[in-house]
């Protein structure tokens, strides 16, 4: 059992210290994913917290056999954010959504300058090919399935899979 597995089990037993550790590990990522969908910091702040509240409340429904804990909470985040964008109030307030990809947001994020990962990430997104940006955007940020992504990007399913592999490989080379 890895440390993460132990944390998750403790979290499922309503251990708040474990919850805090998981929150510290993933809250910024979840915030990023949500923000990339709703494009509004206040809404993103609120939704990110909603995501963790949901995760805490239905902790017992998670099983490591179904996937990674991060993947599980990532899923909750995408669903929560997409639900929000479908709400009437949101649609009315966000009629002119910009269509920035995550890369545009990262590029314009000032606070990254102080982060240790900043250089790698910025380098990565700057050098990232258009196809990589699109694939990562759809598969990780938007939650498209492989099939949906292949239709959206008009490329064969197998190509989506391997291209994604290559793109993530590039990312790993730069940030890990």
């Amino acid at each position, binding site marked *: 059992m890895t440390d993460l597995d132990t944390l998750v089990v403790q979290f499922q037993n309503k251990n708040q210290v474990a919850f805090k550790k998981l929150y510290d590990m993933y809250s910024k990522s979840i915030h990023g994913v949500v923000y990339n969908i709703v494009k509004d910091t206040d809404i993103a702040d609120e939704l990110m917290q909603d995501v963790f509240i949901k995760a*805490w409340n239905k902790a017992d429904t998670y099983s490591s*056999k179904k996937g*990674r804990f991060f993947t599980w909470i990532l899923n909750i985040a995408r669903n929560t954010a997409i639900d929000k964008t479908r709400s009437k109030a949101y649609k009315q307030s966000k009629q002119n959504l910009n269509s920035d990809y995550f890369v545009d947001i990262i590029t314009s*994020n000032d606070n990254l300058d102080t982060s240790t990962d900043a250089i790698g990430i910025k380098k990565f997104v700057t050098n990232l090919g258009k196809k990589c940006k699109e694939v990562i955007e759809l598969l*990780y940020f938007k939650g498209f399935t492989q099939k949906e992504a292949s239709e959206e990007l008009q490329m064969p399913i197998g190509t989506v899979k391997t291209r994604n592999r290559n793109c993530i490989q590039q990312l790993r080379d730069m940030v890990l």
Partner: protein
Amino acid sequence: MDIKAYIESGILELYVAGQLTEKENQEVYDLLQKYPELLQEVLEIEAAVVKLTAAVSPHAIDFDSFKGKLGHTDTKVVDLKPKKPNWISYTGWAASILLAGGLLWTLNNKNEIEDQLQTVEIEKQYLEIQIEDARTDLAATKTLLDAIRDKDILAVPLGGQGDYASTYAKVYWNKADNTIYLDAEGLPDAPEGKVWQVWSLTLNPLTPTSLGTIDDFNTDNNKIFAIANANESQAFGITLEPAGGSASPTMEQLYTLGVVESTP
């Protein structure tokens, strides 16, 4: 199994993205338990994605402020749905029960009042009948009184005869409308099978003319009877006759007799 080819297929990236089926997830999980290289690969993919996604976030929100936002308890973040009593619900139920009770009470009350009202209604009708009776009585008495007081009336006292000296009667004769009013208060009830018969008499010669029998004598309250009389009567007599009356008076049964004093 070719671990390298499996890794190169890109399935682990999809696994982290959450884009595999439940069955595929289960398969990957089983392999991860078996091959540490695969697990290591997944951890690196995940770490890279966590960093990338975190880079999109414009700012972090630390756990303490998140916890503060929950705002209910320091020890149990689980208390997101506070177990505060739902007063609105309780109050609602209480109000419903009170209302239902009130309705039942009101219904019961209504039925009681309806019963009472019905009783009162019956009493009222009964009283109305009594009043009506009294009015009728009063009207009859007035008519009678008016009749007796009429200036044209002729009062003829009938005295008791023979064995019946204690009996008496009185005739008020209104010649204008050929009616006599017989006040027979002084006569006893007619015995079973007998009836009082009223006679108009002329004295010279003595000729009795029947004015009829008083069939309702025993049941009449004021014992005053209006009887038509178109005769030139000189006297009136009352005899007790067998039921149905007789053609001529039975003189032994003559109770009262009175002579008209003067012929107006």
